[in-house]
């Protein structure tokens, strides 16, 4: 088929130019008009952490190491801050953390494809069998908030664990269900709860945040305990699944009449701020998740096992106190006690690599704790720091103990 070559190129060029002009004009319009409706606001959703050098103080040892961590998206904002801060002081140690979810982090630990894993769920019996001699090091305390998006309604909806279990099981479907209305103390709130369906948002990936939240629902609702139970990837009877804490936060923020659970740091740092539920604690008070109420849960700690023992039953849910938020959890770092098992990783290849990992972990539980508060987490109480220090000091490479500073 013969065609006029000149005609084609002019037309193609003309169409291409028109397309570019349209795209640029649309982009300019969107950028200039700004978003007023709760449509396209999102929370940042980077998956890997980037290391930007903020300040270089004293250069330390010259051997460069590259460490890999993976796991919880719950701790990701804090982990990213730690890595950046640590890199500014130890520019030879590059740490890469992938926020793939606690379940994936634990799988990576078992497969020896990471130097350390982060998770909000402690190692269960099955995981302990697959990751023998793994140490549990709590590195921060955080809480799981329940966020919702109701137009014209602010923060402070009161809910109990039992009602939350019903909502997430799909048994309570409307915002103005009597079970919800009767819990409210604010008269305007009581009157303005809309006759709309509750759109439940949960995690689509395997998550320690889900583990903590379903743990709370299991403790507060016998029906939930029987039907669904506590799991990193529970069989949600209803709702939409989103990837990562940031996915759930973004979904709730962008859509009306949604309710989902997100870690406190994500709730506090998203713009605009998410509206949060005041959950009833064992003392009967409705408590909003804040740093103060999360710290209160850490003051009356259960007795903690040693770093190399079984942490499967440890949790900070429903702690006593009038001003305690009930859905609080440790977030853990798991690492092998004898690092030479990480044959493909930096920490398993040489003593220097192992030392780099140990020193990073030491820094996290000591100096790093100062970063926790600014990002919405709770710093570890001193007795937990002491326990962690003992655990980290027990890490060996080829049987040799490693320097921590």
């Amino acid at each position, binding site marked *: 088929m013969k065609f006029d070559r000149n005609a084609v190129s002019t037309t*193609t060029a003309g169409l291409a130019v028109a397309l570019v002009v349209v795209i640029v004009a649309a982009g300019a319009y969107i950028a200039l008009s700004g978003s007023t409706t709760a449509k396209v606001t999102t929370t940042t959703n980077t998956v890997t952490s980037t290391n930007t050098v903020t300040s270089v103080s004293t250069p330390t040892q010259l051997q460069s190491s590259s460490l890999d961590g993976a796991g919880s998206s719950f701790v990701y904002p804090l982990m990213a801050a730690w890595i950046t801060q640590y890199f500014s002081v130890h520019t030879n140690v590059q740490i890469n953390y992938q926020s793939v979810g606690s379940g994936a982090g634990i799988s990576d630990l078992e497969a020896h494809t990471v130097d350390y894993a982060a998770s909000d769920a402690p190692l269960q019996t099955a995981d302990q069998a697959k990751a023998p001699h793994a140490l549990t090091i709590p590195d921060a305390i955080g809480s799981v908030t329940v966020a919702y998006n109701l137009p014209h309604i602010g923060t402070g909806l009161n809910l109990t664990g039992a009602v939350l279990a019903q909502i997430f099981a799909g048994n309570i479907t409307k915002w103005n269900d009597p079970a919800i209305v009767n819990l409210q103390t604010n008269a305007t709130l009581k009157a303005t709860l809309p006759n709309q369906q509750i*759109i439940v948002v949960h995690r689509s990936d*395997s998550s320690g945040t889900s583990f903590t939240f379903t743990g709370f629902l299991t403790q507060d609702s016998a029906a939930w305990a029987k039907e669904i139970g506590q799991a990193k990837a529970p069989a949600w009877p209803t709702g939409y699944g989103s990837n990562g804490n940031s996915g759930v936060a973004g979904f709730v923020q962008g859509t009306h009449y949604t309710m989902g659970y997100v870690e406190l740091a994500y709730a506090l740092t998203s713009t605009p701020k998410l509206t949060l539920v005041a959950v009833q604690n064992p003392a009967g008070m409705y408590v909003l998740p804040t740093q103060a109420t999360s710290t209160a849960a850490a003051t009356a700690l259960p007795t903690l096992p040693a770093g190399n023992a079984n942490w499967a039953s440890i949790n900070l849910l429903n702690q006593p106190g009038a001003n305690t938020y009930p859905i609080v959890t440790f977030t853990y770092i798991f690492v092998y006690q004898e690092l030479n098992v990480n044959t493909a990783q930096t920490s398993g290849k040489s003593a220097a690599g192992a030392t780099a990992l140990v020193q990073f972990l030491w820094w996290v539980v000591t100096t790093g704790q100062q970063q926790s508060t600014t990002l919405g987490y709770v710093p570890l109480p001193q007795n937990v720091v002491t326990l962690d220090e003992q655990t980290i000091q027990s890490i060996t490479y080829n049987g040799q103990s490693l320097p921590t500073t």
Partner: protein
Amino acid sequence: MRLSRFRGDDAFKLVAAALAASVLVILLLMGYTLLRSSVPVLERFGLYFFTGTKWNSAAGHEIYGALPYMLGTLVTSAIALIIGVPISLGIAIFLSEMSPRRIRIPISNLVELLAAVPSVIYGLWGFFVFRFFLADYIEAPLSAYLGWIPVFSGPVLGVDVLAAGCILSIMIIPTVSSVSREVISAVPNSVREGAYSIGATRWEVTRNWVLSYARSGLFGAVILGLGRAVGETIAVSMVIGNAVGPQALPTSLLKPGQTMSSLILNLFFEATPGTYEFSAILGVGLFLMILAFSINILARLMVTRVLKVKGGAVE
């Protein structure tokens, strides 16, 4: 000299045969790995894996039924075909029969540009832009007027089976339309001239003569599009709502669902080799592969047996 040339030919034949065989070997290896890894879950749950709807990986409550995801894949692909194939055929007919010659190449290039967009961009655009359009202008009236029909009941969110089907239909348009366009262009002009000579109108010529002549080729184009729709992962998982278990059954267009590929995407990160969950995920992958193969085999069977292949038509 004659001997060395003979050896060179032989070597070349061997290399070419090895390359062709390597494709077969890769396919067989993939199939074998999937089959071997799915055996544990199939042994334990048997037919329930294909007919059951519950999916729970919690220790002590383990049960894996993949029916909702299989149906989800079929339903989203069907929606993609229902929406995408008429549009693609329209584009193909327009470009090959009716458009002025000057704009034929630029427009076809632009349509093929749609294929160059990475599928994750489709997912992003679908989640952040398209779903609001879908929710406000299509799902809201659908739910308001036809919401009493079970297949249209559900919240108007734009994140559901219908949204996934729509995104998939956009993704298959370039494939189906470009192959259809070539197929229609390959119809010899004598067919058209003969039709015009007996007084057929333009539409009649196109519909009764050109399209039926190119039937097998068009069917092949549709199957290509279906193949892409069945395998599409990231774009679907961003807009389909990621439901799990019995509620993932695609009973309604406006409810969240799950396809086989989006399930694998959501779950494979946490899958530890040796667990039943790992085996179940690979079982779903095995079934997805079998489905894709059967679609292709079925297409070939239909093309050669049911539709008579006419001389000159592109298969």
